[in-house]
């Protein structure tokens, strides 16, 4: 694409983007935080496993007595 066509496309894009509806940062931050709080319970990388035995990558014990 030529320089001119690229610039034209960019102008159109910027006009479109200027017209989109925005939310306040404070509002979107609150929503990101609530999403996080709603899912944090199941996020084992944050809260850890309640029992290490549930960790599929936990190394097996060295020996087992039956």
């Amino acid at each position, binding site marked *: *694409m*030529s*320089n*001119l*066509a*690229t*610039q*034209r*496309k*960019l*102008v159109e*894009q*910027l*006009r*479109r*983007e*200027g017209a*989109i509806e*925005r*939310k*306040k*940062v*404070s*509002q*979107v*931050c*609150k*929503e*990101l*935080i609530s*999403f*996080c*709080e*709603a*899912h*944090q319970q*199941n*996020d*084992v*990388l*944050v809260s*850890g496993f309640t029992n290490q035995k549930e*960790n*599929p*990558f*936990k*190394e097996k014990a060295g020996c087992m007595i039956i």
Partner: protein
Amino acid sequence: MSVITEEPNRLTPIGAQNGELSSLNLGSNNGDTIEELTREVEALKKKLEEERAKFNDVALNVVAQKLEPITGFQLKARRSLKGHQGKVLAIDWCSDKRHIASSSQDGKLVIWDAFSTNKEHVVTMPTTWVMTCAYGPSGNFVTCGGLDNKITLYKLSTDEDISKQKRVIANHTNYISCNKFLYSDQQLITGSGDSTLKLWDVETGQLMQTFNGHQADVMCLDISPSEAGNIFLSGSSDHVALVWDIRSGQYVQIFDGHESDVNSVKFHPSGDAFATGSDDSTCRLFDLRADRQVGIYKKESILFACNSVDMSLSGRLLFAGYNDYCINVWDTLKSVRVSILYAHENRVTSIQVSPDGAALASASWDSNIKIWA
């Protein structure tokens, strides 16, 4: 400033100031000149910036101040997947949460059982630098490609040599840096050094859509967690991330801020925001609805490029792999570093949280893949 255009009907230089051809008239479109357009772009960008600034009433880490900090975080390197003879460039988890595909500078595609650390398949590609690989959502197919400018599809089966069941399904005019399936085994999106992204029908290898807009090499892409939005993300050496409308093929939002190549883009699990990693050694969080950057993750002591980012299941943790051999773990909300994962002996190229959020896989130039859990 000299302007080169390929338009055959360019005529009448109208702004020959200082003896230079500083603007060109195409004779159409109300006599737009490159100068006028450039001026308009600048004006629009300024207006857009002002508009965005109006909505920037408070910072994310301020809103998150009252949250409890993350304590007791601990991840250990539980597995080492060894066998590649060169730099590991890409990894992808299978939806079964157990297998991992990896591709390497050594020209190999390997399918690993991450539990046992066994290699289940090894495929030798005709070229080295296999820069990207992807598992189909069903777990029955794997694709890979790189410097060969192609994506080859392999059907996985237990008993056969899978390289006999291969098919080229995508191609570009330059190297392929990234590829991802779009919600099913039927469609694939690829990103390339030719600065485009393309959507392919996997079955027929037919090109469905070309996404033009980046000004330089496409480095990364990510698919929205919500299918309804019909959008995906890309990042490029032109320093910006773009949000694309899959159906129209147009980009709908531009996100700038990074001062160098955007190496990695990853949707927040909510689908409303995304994280990036860049050669400028920062990670950032952009929100689609606020239409701007809402978080930045950096430290004076972090000087090296970030190659790959991913988020935990809730979006609270941001994992980032760097050229200084480290994986930094950030609190996405408070914008502070929670931990450093250090086990690799060379650049960390690719990291990915497992589909169930229980583990993190990392790949490195040290030719190893590690599983953290």
